[in-house]
């Protein structure tokens, strides 16, 4: 009995939390003649409900450019970002719909792409943090898959974007340090399986849409080995990235 009581109390506490969480949702007042609610988060989904002027909608969450909203009488649907941006808070202030990240001054970037490293197919993934509008720190992890060996390359470097205000195409240059690990596939085995490297690169970047962008890069690596021979590698790659 005591256990039952405890569980009931626990449930009640959870309910209270739940109600509290539900209360903590954003409420917006429609100022246009109406706000359309679609059946799904996409332009093709039909309008299933319309909220009138001066009525309040509760914003539940967002997905891409669509916001799941609840009408005063409980109907739920998806409102377009641009429509919801025209609503206001109860205090009369404009709705806090976050703007798209500004491409020229974005902070974070995460991307992946295809490349050729030392004449081998390569899969690349990277993360990039913008120190200023034109200076970034980038960290890259890539796997080159060849017929003789496979190589895992990790690198960190600093990149300069020459004309960040050029939206569709702006050239970049970078320098950095890298580390490669060679996994032998066919004999003979490589004489060294781990190397420290340094690189210089030239590239370009551009905006595609919303939070999407492209990057292309050519890199020249110098391999530090203890074999007393000069060794260098070439790489080019193309990738797509999401910026925040």
């Amino acid at each position, binding site marked *: 009995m005591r256990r039952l009581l405890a569980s009931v109390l626990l449930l009640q506490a959870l309910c209270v939390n739940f109600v509290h969480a539900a209360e*903590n*949702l*954003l409420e917006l007042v429609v100022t246009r003649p109406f706000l359309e609610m679609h*059946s*799904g*988060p*996409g*332009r*093709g*989904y039909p309008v299933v409900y319309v909220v009138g002027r001066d009525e309040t909608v509760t*914003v539940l*969450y*967002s*997905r*891409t*450019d*669509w*916001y*799941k909203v609840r009408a005063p009488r409980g109907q739920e649907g998806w409102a377009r970002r641009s429509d919801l941006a025209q609503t206001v*808070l109860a*205090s009369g202030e404009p709705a*806090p*719909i*976050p703007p798209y990240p500004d491409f020229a001054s974005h902070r974070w970037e995460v991307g*992946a792409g*295809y490349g050729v490293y030392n004449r*081998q*197919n*390569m*899969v690349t*993934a990277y993360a990039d943090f913008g120190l200023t509008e034109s200076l970034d720190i980038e960290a890259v992890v890539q*796997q080159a*898959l060849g017929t003789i060996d*496979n190589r895992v390359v990790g690198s960190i470097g600093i990149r300069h974007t020459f004309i960040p205000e050029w939206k569709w195409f702006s050239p970049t240059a970078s320098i950095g340090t890298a580390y490669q690990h060679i*996994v032998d*596939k066919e004999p003979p085995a490589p004489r060294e399986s781990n190397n420290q490297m340094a690189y210089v690169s030239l590239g370009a970047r551009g905006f595609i*849409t*919303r*939070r*999407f962008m492209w990057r292309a890069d050519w890199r020249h690596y110098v391999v530090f080995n203890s074999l007393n021979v000069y060794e260098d590698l070439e790489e080019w790659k193309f990738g*797509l990235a*999401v910026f925040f």
Partner: protein
Amino acid sequence: MEIRLSSILLAAALLSGCGWFHRGEKAHNQVVVDEPEGEPTIIEPQVTRREVKTPKIKAKDFEIGAYFGALSIQDFGVNPVYGARLAYHVTEDLFVEGFLATSKAGTTSLEDEFPDITVVSNAGRQFTYYDLDLGYNVLPGEIFLGRGRAFNSQLYVTVGMGDVKFAEKDQFAINFGVGERLLITDWLALHLDVRDHIFETSLTGRTKNVDNIEATLGLTTFF
């Protein structure tokens, strides 16, 4: 006893008296400092401003889930495959997705015919892959179940690349796929996918591109 009690009372009275005395002094000082002649007194209201926090809107652009199905490994039969997937929806049309899955290859017809021949060692039959894909929702729509139920759905195409580890070797692989996302609720989705993983191999003699077609059923949740 009585003496002790009275001495305590006396001490208390003295202390309060001192306090009283000092209070008076302070008050006297305040009058002199705070109210210089000719300037009006400004009364500051002692009300703390209430902070109004606007609730943040939670973005649910990520999709995570698991899938299972059948993978046809060329020359090695059709085998069960299990995997995990993580997607990020960039726009209502575009998404990026990563896959990680494993399967175990069967035997080739040559091995079936001649049991003494081994094309791939037992450990090498493990087929694992990772993929990085770009997806496009080509046909968004609704699927009707009876009279009263409609589920949102999207038919999508994906293209990507990754690594296939088979016969204890990693190979670069590209993949093409088509899939259907059926949203049971706005946060839970059922996936039906058909994808082809293509890579170059010379396991069965000559070097060739092999097609490894996979049909899977998956469940994902948005967060």
